[in-house]
């Protein structure tokens, strides 16, 4: 991957922090603390409009109980900058997979540039401080409303054995079933079926995985993204708390991994080797969040070694699917 000089990213970070301050002075600050298991992240929005656009999927994590803040994320709109916003110091050729831009020797400051929407995330890993600039709140795309601030949260919440991963999770007091698989594999269908039949919801697409000792799936977002018109590409974003009150679980211990596959017909469950489960789960996580050079792979490997893994053929009957998830939980308890 092409890498910028460290100085370029460092000075851009400092200039962007001043830009945030100017925007915040103009718009006022909306400060919200979010809690994800034992971590607290302070969000400092320059302007209420941006808070409204990005907080929806995270509202359930809001926590005003106080306590030590583990990371801060400062957010503003480029259009709120009185003197115009700073141009990024990198070229398109500098932007790697996942929008990642790095300095030569790294590793204090890095950037994630989503060139489609123009959103820029800057991370000072030493300070656990993140800057997040969007062009304007009206241009936040549907996927960012469904699962906002993934690169920012990756750095704010991640660490050794803690990773933001591509997976869903459902379950109850017995524990959780982690739903692993690529886009379109059926994770959302299984999560919705489980939700409709009384199981709790942790995530349909992205969650925070604690992989040290007993693995735990921690909820980030309260949303599911439903593909209403496949040809159009866009999805409808639905808050699960509006579907069933009390269905959202803050976290669940991972008791099993299920790898769904859309098949139609009858739901079918079979045991899967840990290696097969890892092959279905790891690439989609590593490639979607390439921010740690694949360090998540070892943690995912630890999870599939520890808990039983299953292949779940996703049929058309939601009641059958929910029963299959129940069977996974029952077999995992044996």
């Amino acid at each position, binding site marked *: 991957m092409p890498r910028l000089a460290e100085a370029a990213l460092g000075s851009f970070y400092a200039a962007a922090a001043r830009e945030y301050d100017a925007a915040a002075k103009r718009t006022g600050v909306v400060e919200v603390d979010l809690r994800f298991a034992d971590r607290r992240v302070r969000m400092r929005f320059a302007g209420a409009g941006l808070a409204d656009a990005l907080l929806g999927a995270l509202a359930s994590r809001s926590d005003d109980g106080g306590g030590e803040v583990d990371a801060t994320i400062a957010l503003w709109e480029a259009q709120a900058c009185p003197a115009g916003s700073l141009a990024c110091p990198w070229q398109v050729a500098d932007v790697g997979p996942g929008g990642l831009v790095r300095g030569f020797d790294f590793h204090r400051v890095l950037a994630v540039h989503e*060139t489609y929407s123009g959103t820029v995330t800057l991370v000072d890993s030493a300070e656990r401080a993140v800057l997040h600039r969007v062009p304007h709140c009206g241009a936040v795309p549907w996927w960012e409303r469904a699962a906002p601030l993934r690169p920012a949260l990756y750095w704010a919440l991640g660490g050794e054995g803690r990773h933001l991963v591509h997976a869903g999770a459902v379950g109850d007091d017995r524990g959780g079933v982690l739903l692993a698989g690529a886009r379109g594999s059926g994770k959302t269908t299984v999560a919705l079926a489980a939700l409709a039949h009384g199981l709790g919801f942790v995530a349909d697409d992205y969650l925070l995985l604690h992989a040290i000792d007993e693995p735990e799936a921690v909820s980030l977002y309260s949303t599911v993204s439903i593909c209403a018109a496949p040809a159009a590409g866009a999805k409808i974003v639905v808050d699960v708390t509006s579907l069933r009150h009390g269905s959202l679980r803050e976290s669940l211990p991972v008791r099993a991994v299920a790898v769904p596959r859309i098949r139609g017909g009858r739901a079918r469950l079979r045991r899967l080797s840990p290696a097969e489960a890892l092959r279905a789960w*790891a690439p989609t996580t*590593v*490639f979607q969040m390439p921010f740690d050079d694949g360090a998540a792979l*070892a943690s995912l490997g630890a999870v599939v*070694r520890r808990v039983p893994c299953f292949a779940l053929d996703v049929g058309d009957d939601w009641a059958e699917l929910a029963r299959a998830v129940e069977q996974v939980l029952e077999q995992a308890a044996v």
Partner: protein
Amino acid sequence: MPGAGTSLVVDASHVVHETIDGEAILIHLRTGTYYSLDGVGAEVWALLATGTDADALLLAGRERYEGDPVEVERGLSSLLAELLREGLVIEGESQRAAGSAGLPSGRVPFIVPVLHTYTDMQEFMLVDPLREVDEVAG
């Protein structure tokens, strides 16, 4: 085929890997391609992960695997060439300490190793995968 005496190491700057129950899963961070190896291939990968050279690997292979020695050498050389071609290993300084273990002990039948290759994640190598997918979809 790597030349005689060529030292081979996993390209750790671009490749992450994990081996579970005799299956090695390899992810190339730059190309968006991932791979799996089992049986003979996974044993060879374990050796490469600690660094070796082509000659030592072929010698160890003749001791480890039953079968026609020419076929064993051809199969192992072909795998090494493919791993090099895919950028999973590179020629470089061997990291293996003198006297460390090679292939597992005992003799087992030689089954020609196959590098299983998966390219379904390459969309994520695009700068804006969601945009590209949406455009393709219509």
